[in-house]
């Protein structure tokens, strides 16, 4: 039976279910996927629909099981060598085929380089609405997705709706929601789906791939971030982070200068962090950066410029050179090790 026959002539087909894409590379699942599963669970409960995890990769049956344990009612598993390593074409084609066949109402994808790369390859041919880089998600009384995203360098928040097209798709910033916990007793189905992609159809091939451990700054309780003021030397930042048991992060400036890897960038084009303590060292405090650390419990700023905007976004500030202040601070804090946090 074709889709048209199933839905009746002239009637809009019903779109139902909340889908979450589970992103996996060489066995590692991107943290944002489990965050979206938690948020997707909330949305699905609100609209009284199923939460479906979509798992694409090679040898990823265990990832599908884990998606069920973390809250999915069902996991769809597309398992084939054509999906490893990631390429936009095969992922986009497979995802699109499933979206068109199963007609979900809402589709959430992590706003990673991967998610942002292939989401359009699904949304365009499916004529779906796609909202980029959301930081808040909700549904209204009619079950319409309200996707909120920062715009204009973070000065404003826009609410994007997709009234007439389905599915309603969104890429979502990493770190804005808590990850779903794992419950081994949770029930759910894993369904292996037909793979519709063939290697011969691929428009690209990966020649080399060098990916180290993907730093996850979004889960850290303490984040020590360096900006232009580190002037290429992250040693003092790293030492303080180590003393506090935290992660090292950076502003876009430090990343663009090549001083540190992009995975550690906080801000509009990077990640959102929500630590108990955020130390901004040598960071001026542009809105694009502040947007990524606004949810920190306590913010400490170290900057040579007493007029740097970062002091307006900090709880405690000190005017001084981070290369002097941080080592001193590290020494003091090492002398009296903090209590382990819960």
């Amino acid at each position, binding site marked *: 039976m074709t889709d048209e026959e199933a839905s009746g002539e002239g009637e809009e087909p019903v779109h139902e279910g909340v889908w979450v894409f589970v992103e996996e590379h060489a066995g590692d699942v991107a943290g944002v996927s489990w965050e979206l599963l938690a948020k997707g669970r909330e949305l699905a409960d609100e609209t009284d629909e199923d939460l479906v995890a979509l798992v694409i990769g090679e040898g990823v049956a265990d990832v599908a099981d884990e998606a069920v344990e973390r809250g999915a009612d069902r996991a769809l598993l597309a398992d084939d060598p054509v999906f490893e390593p990631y390429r936009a074409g095969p992922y986009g084609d497979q995802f699109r085929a499933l979206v068109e066949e199963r007609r979900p109402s809402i589709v959430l994808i992590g706003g990673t380089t991967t998610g942002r790369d292939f989401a359009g390859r699904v949304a365009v041919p499916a004529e779906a609405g796609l909202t980029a880089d959301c930081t808040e998600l909700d549904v209204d009384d009619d079950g319409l997705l309200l996707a909120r995203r920062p715009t204009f360098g973070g000065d404003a928040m826009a609410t994007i709706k997709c009234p007439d097209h389905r599915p309603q798709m969104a890429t979502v910033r990493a770190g804005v929601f808590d990850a779903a916990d794992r419950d081994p007793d949770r029930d759910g189905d894993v369904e292996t789906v037909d793979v519709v992609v063939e290697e011969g159809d691929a428009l690209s091939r990966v020649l*080399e791939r060098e990916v180290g451990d993907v730093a996850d700054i979004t889960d850290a309780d303490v984040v020590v971030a360096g900006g232009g003021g580190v002037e290429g030397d992250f040693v003092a930042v790293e030492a303080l982070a180590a003393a506090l048991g935290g992660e090292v992060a950076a502003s876009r400036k430090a990343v663009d200068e090549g001083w540190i890897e992009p995975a550690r960038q906080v801000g509009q084009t990077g990640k959102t962090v929500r630590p108990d303590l955020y130390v901004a060292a040598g960071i001026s405090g542009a809105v694009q950066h502040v947007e990524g650390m606004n949810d920190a419990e306590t913010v400490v700023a170290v900057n040579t410029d007493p007029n740097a905007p970062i002091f307006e976004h900090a709880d405690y*500030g000190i005017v001084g050179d981070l290369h002097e202040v941080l080592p001193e601070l590290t020494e003091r*804090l090492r002398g009296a090790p903090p209590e382990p946090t819960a």
Partner: protein
Amino acid sequence: MTDDWTIVVPVKQVPDADDVTIDPETGTLNRSDAPAVLNAPDYNAVEAALSLRERAGGEVVAVTMGPPFARAVLETAVALGADDAVLLTDRAFGGSDTWPTSLALAAAADELEADVVVCGEESTDSSTGQVPPGIAAHNGWAQLTYAEELEPRPDADELVAVRNVEGGHERVAAETPVVVAFEYGANEPRAAGLHRKIYAETEFEPEQWSAEDLGITDDVGLANSPTQVGGMDTADRAEREQTVVEDVDALADRIAEVTADD
């Protein structure tokens, strides 16, 4: 010279970010008063395209979609070294979100018989990054997003890119035609030459294409945009103590307090 590449660079005019204000009454952005400038990441895209032309041969054509005054950013692209430029302008395009915008640019790239389309990573005013994959998807072409380096292989009808991905890099070879989204800041854009600048501002006239010329009148504009802006408000600002402490000891005490909580 039939193997020479046609390299299309879609560019965008954006309000100069420094001049955009938020209306305190309505919470909406006042963009209209701000002067329109070339989207900053597009400078990197133009540079990447010119560099490809130097190595692969061919021509660089800038394209923008917008009102007639958007031609200013095409002049900028021509001043920087683009050989030609096309303005997609039509009332029918008004209110387009990324779906019809990428359709119009895809149709133009197809019409120009592009081998390579080089876009900036994203625009500074809406920063969705959705248009480059959208162009590729509309045309069924390959795509290389977050590209930091490009290596043309015109004899093999391939473009190789070093892509910046989470936690590292990858080298990917894609068949042409291919759409590139070039990473913001990943190259050093050249300055416009004086002669080229004068040419762009005086003699140069971009071609103008309407939605009808591209055969997409019924597929663009607000009515064909799946997403709608349902409201705009100023971002919440977190309340902060804003206390400046005098010495490191005081700061260490505060940090010890914070990390000892729970």
